[in-house]
């Protein structure tokens, strides 16, 4: 199983540094692990702990949180607030029995595409070593009753 296991990672990036680092990695054609799927937030400070839990609950095996370097935040200091929240989330996850290694905080400036790519590769391998999380009810063997289908959206 572990031979074929491809982890899925949700990455939260800020609009100004880390998302642009991902753009830069792309522009520079740096090849890296396809396991990460990015969500753009305006700032890493926007990261609601719910997002992390939701990602794990929806089937992610790892969560990457990425923002501007401390001192470089485009909203002055909001990445510090993200950092505070990150360690809180990490503790919370541990209490819920999720390995702390499944979540990673990464500072990446808009110029650090190569660093971002490299760190994503490393993180993918770390999560791969941890194995699948199996938190997603629809992926598990028995689909629990609370796995409701998405509600039809009405305008």
């Amino acid at each position: 199983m572990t031979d074929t296991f491809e982890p899925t990672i949700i990455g939260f990036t800020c609009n100004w540094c880390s998302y642009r680092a991902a753009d830069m990695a792309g522009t520079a054609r740096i090849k890296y692990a396809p396991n990460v799927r990015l969500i753009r937030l305006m700032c890493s400070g926007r990261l609601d702990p719910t997002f992390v839990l939701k990602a794990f609950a929806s089937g992610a095996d790892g969560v990457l949180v990425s923002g501007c370097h401390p001192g470089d935040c485009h909203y002055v200091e909001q990445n510090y607030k993200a950092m505070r929240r990150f360690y809180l989330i990490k503790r919370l996850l541990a209490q819920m029995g999720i390995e702390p290694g499944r979540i990673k905080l990464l500072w990446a400036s808009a110029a650090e595409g190569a660093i971002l790519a490299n760190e994503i590769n490393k993180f993918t391998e770390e999560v791969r070593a941890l194995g699948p999380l199996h938190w997603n009810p629809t992926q598990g063997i028995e689909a629990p009753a609370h796995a409701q289908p998405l509600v039809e959206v009405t305008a």
Partner: protein
Amino acid sequence: MSEKIGVYVCHCGTNIAGTVDVEDVAKWAAEQLKHRGVVIARDYKFMCSSLGQELIQKDIQELGLTRVVVAACSPHLHERTFRTACKNAGLNPYLCELVSIREQCSWIHADKVVGTEKSKAILSGGVERVIWHEALEPLRVPIHPATLVVGGGIAGIQAALEIADAGFPVIMVEREPSIGGHMAQFDKTFPTLDCSACILTPKMVDVGNHPNIKLLSWAEVTKVDGYVGNFQVVVKQKARCVVTELCTGCGICVEKCPKKVVDDVFEAGLGKRKAIYTPFPQAVPKYPVLDRENCTYFIKGTCKACEKFCPTGAIDFNQKDEYLQFDVGQIILATGWELFDVRRIPQYGYGRLPNVLTSLEFERLSNAAGPTGGKIVMKDGVTAPKSVGIVHCVGSRDKNYNAYCSSICCMQSLKFAHLVHERTGAEVHNFYIDIRTPSKGYEEFYQRLLEEGTHFVRGKVADITNSVRLPGEEGKLVIQVEDTLIGKQRRIPVDMVILSAGLEPRHDTKEVARLFGLSCSADGWMIERHPKLDPVATMTDGIMIAGCLQGPKDIPASVAQGAAAAARVVGKIQQKEISIEPVRATVNQDKCSGCRICNNLCPFNAILYHEDRMVSEVNPALCQGCGTCVAACPAGAITGTGFSNEQVLAQIEGLLMLNVKRMETIPA
């Protein structure tokens, strides 16, 4: 009513189609995401082309699409393009979502199967997200016509004059007694060798006389409140002890003042000034400043020579610092740079060896209005050097100090070499890592220097010493260097060494950044909105940056930035009101418990607390839309438009294909 979603997958030539089976992605979306509201999914060679945009517009009109998802390049490149396309077809632009399958997929993967699968996930995330999008309107706020320009160097001067000439009021604040900045200290400017004062002083005089410019020198900004279009700033006017309404600028007080002080600012420590002074003869404004720290009257209680001799009775020892308040619509920061402290490299001997100078000291030494009247002489004040060494990249391009290139030092060093040659006939050695002469006329200047017979030694100087090891080194400064072109260590004895020190952000740039709500890079320079496409705007709407506080640059580049910042400012003033991206936080006042957790999280002071109703409210014009308060609100009372909880949570589900998987698990 369900949403009608249109999905458009771009080939981007072969940029995407090379590693993503674009047709398969579109077909998959049409089938597998049909239950989520996708009514049409198309692929096209270049979605951003006018034909690609027409495709979307036609579908909006004919199929009545209520949402659009484009899978193409990064939103930083073409989000605006597709939003505009939607707007032109009558769909609110914020109901369009651009997901990146190029930078984040096709360009970073080589395997087509992997690329196609990941593209589907990314697209699925976009579809789930767009369902929760809301129709938004840009916010509109009126703009105050006045502009604050902070810093009276060449960049600030240019910006102020452009705005004032366009007919709008400017308030210029300068910390020193006179405007002019570093450029006023120079004798010649490269590569044309124009006299710096001759080209600068007319502009300074224009600033001083302009009816639209209120010039506050010897003043500092202490407080900034408000937001784009409506800033309130407080300026501390330091006491000059000179009543400017009475002063004629005759200079008798300066002449009569008995106290001499070393001038560390304008003369870079090479010359002296009086306790009451104007930094240089052409200073604007012409009124002197009394330096209370060094004035004999303020120290000992007697003297008052200046007061005694002032013909108009303009001296006022009791003057106090004043705090002035102004309303301005926009702000241009041009606070400039500072010289790298060469003492940090002790092996270069600055401060220990008398004839080792910094570049700014040499500027003053070579300046016709400087302490030696422009005579290039050694510390004894009479002897001209017979040989001079100029060391490039002191504190720049050096991992131990600053990794960046200071950009002006090569040309400045070449200029110094020329001036030394011309005025003393001395032999000149330039020690360089690389010669960088990228602007107009710069390479030609370098060629001219080569023809003049300047020696160029490629290598980083290891040591500058006065200890004699070889004959011929007696009484000389010996430059120890590895000449990397011949692969040998050399010891070159010279009479004088000029350290071409790098440019650094001013020591208080971080405080300035905090005051104005901006941010600095790791190097300490202020960060522009976009390094290439928006170099004078900042992340804070209504605040521009110009000149060296954004990064090292020469005079033409500083002038260009000053003018560019002014053009942006004038353009906004003329619109009378401006529109702001509606990515903002709003507080649902019914849900707000008044806990005030969000209040202290906002670095822009955008969250007001209403004591009477015990609820918080976000000022949309101050809010920058980072969303930190949204994430922090324990009651879930704050919504972030454009990045709402629903949108992000839906995107997570979409990215993990929960939408598709659930359909499979639900019995038909």
